[in-house]
């Protein structure tokens, strides 16, 4: 645990070193949400029939969950460690697991801080009418974070091997943002493409978030959370894949190259 805490502390110290880094993260989310707020104001009557809540409410909850994956903290941290040529020191057999767990927890802390800041902001400004079940919300973000982390670590494994030529990272972000219902409900997607939505955890997280944010539903009543638990089982697989990628990279001699 001490090792994980030191690695998380290291990530915070690096983040704080770049004074405006955290602010820019917050403001980029804020302005993205503002864009959707304006879209909702302008197109309200045309968009609303597809949704159970207004479009901005829909975007707000889905975007808060999407943040757990889209901020790419895990992949970015690994890329940064490779760039700084420190990566070799961090992925020794003895502490590779600590390294990965520190990234998962750090990514969770950053996204959760942002989520609660925006919830407070929305509450204070009164722009949204929440009916949140906080127990369900906490369970959702933990399970979502674990299942997204599995995908991020699998993606990072490809970064370790292919460096900037990692097409998996690009594909994952495109698939998640298009097929999971972040910006529009999956029902809008053509029928023949909908099966793709069903194989990504983000879809279930976003659906569950709608119920938790606006309908005060208990987590045991949310089928999507059960689906997300299945995706969590990919986490050990992702750890194994990452270790395999590091092993191959040591054989290729490109562990510290980018």
């Amino acid at each position: 645990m001490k090792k994980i805490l030191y690695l998380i502390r290291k990530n915070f110290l690096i983040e704080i070193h770049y004074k405006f880094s955290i602010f820019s993260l917050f403001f980029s989310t804020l302005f993205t949400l503002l864009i959707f707020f304006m879209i909702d104001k302008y197109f309200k009557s045309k968009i609303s029939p597809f949704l159970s809540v207004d479009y901005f409410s829909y975007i707000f909850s889905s975007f808060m969950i999407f943040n757990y994956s889209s901020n790419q903290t895990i992949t970015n941290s690994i890329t940064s460690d490779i760039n700084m040529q420190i990566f070799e020191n961090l992925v020794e057999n003895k502490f590779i697991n600590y390294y990965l767990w520190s990234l998962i927890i750090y990514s969770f802390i950053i996204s959760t801080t942002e989520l609660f800041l925006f919830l407070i902001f929305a509450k204070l400004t009164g722009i949204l009418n929440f009916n949140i079940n906080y127990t369900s919300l906490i369970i959702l973000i933990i399970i979502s974070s674990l299942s997204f982390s599995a995908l991020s670590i699998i993606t990072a494994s490809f970064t370790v091997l292919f460096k900037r030529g990692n097409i998996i990272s690009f594909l994952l972000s495109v698939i998640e943002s298009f097929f999971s219902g972040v910006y529009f409900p999956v029902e809008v997607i053509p029928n023949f493409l909908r099966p793709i939505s069903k194989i990504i955890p983000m879809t279930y997280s976003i659906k569950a978030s709608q119920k938790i944010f606006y309908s005060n539903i208990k987590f045991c009543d949310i089928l999507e959370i059960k689906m997300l638990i299945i995706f969590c089982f990919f986490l050990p697989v992702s750890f194994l894949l990452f270790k395999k990628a590091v092993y191959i990279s040591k054989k290729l001699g490109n562990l510290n190259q980018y």
Partner: protein
Amino acid sequence: MLELKNISFSYKTIIPFKKNKVIDNLSLKFDKGLYSIIAQNGWGKTTLLKIIKGFLIPDCGEIIINGAKTKFKNYPSDYFSLFSNSFKNFYPQLTVIENIKLFLTLEDVKIDLKKINQFSKMLGIENYLNKKTQELSTGSIAKAILLKIFIEDKNFILLDEPFSNIDEKSLEIIKDYLTKISMKKTIIIATSKRNETKGFVNEKNIISY
């Protein structure tokens, strides 16, 4: 004791598949004491030390540590401390002390502030401990990394071009300390400059290419 048997290593790219052989069928044996590998640039000194540390896995060959054959899948990297001038060992955004604490914790080494202060005074970097690594000169960073290595106190110390940026006064102190601890440890210094280890490393322990 450390033994390398028929080690070969090539840097490879996947797409397109290319191989660049750097080390070919190399065998070496190290007992306790100070050793020096002297070879010109590009010979593969850094590569060799990285293989010993476990940062690279050779194409073939074996490494025997204290009589036990190692498996590269579960390589015991924690036997070794590695200093290299060719890649970073510390986070530039963190202070020296933060870096030292982080890496000592990862290595399961107790953080002994008294010991850190003692070594930092010896190396003349006591005033730099709370400075960010990126604010230090190359020589001071090298000293800070050596400080971490001295505190780790491992049985095998691998030093890749360790003296190239260090001032003469500190150099004497570091050499004296290395000589002192070499009774109980294996210290391998890789360098391209013969005069860096002249009179410091015993002639019979100099491996020259």
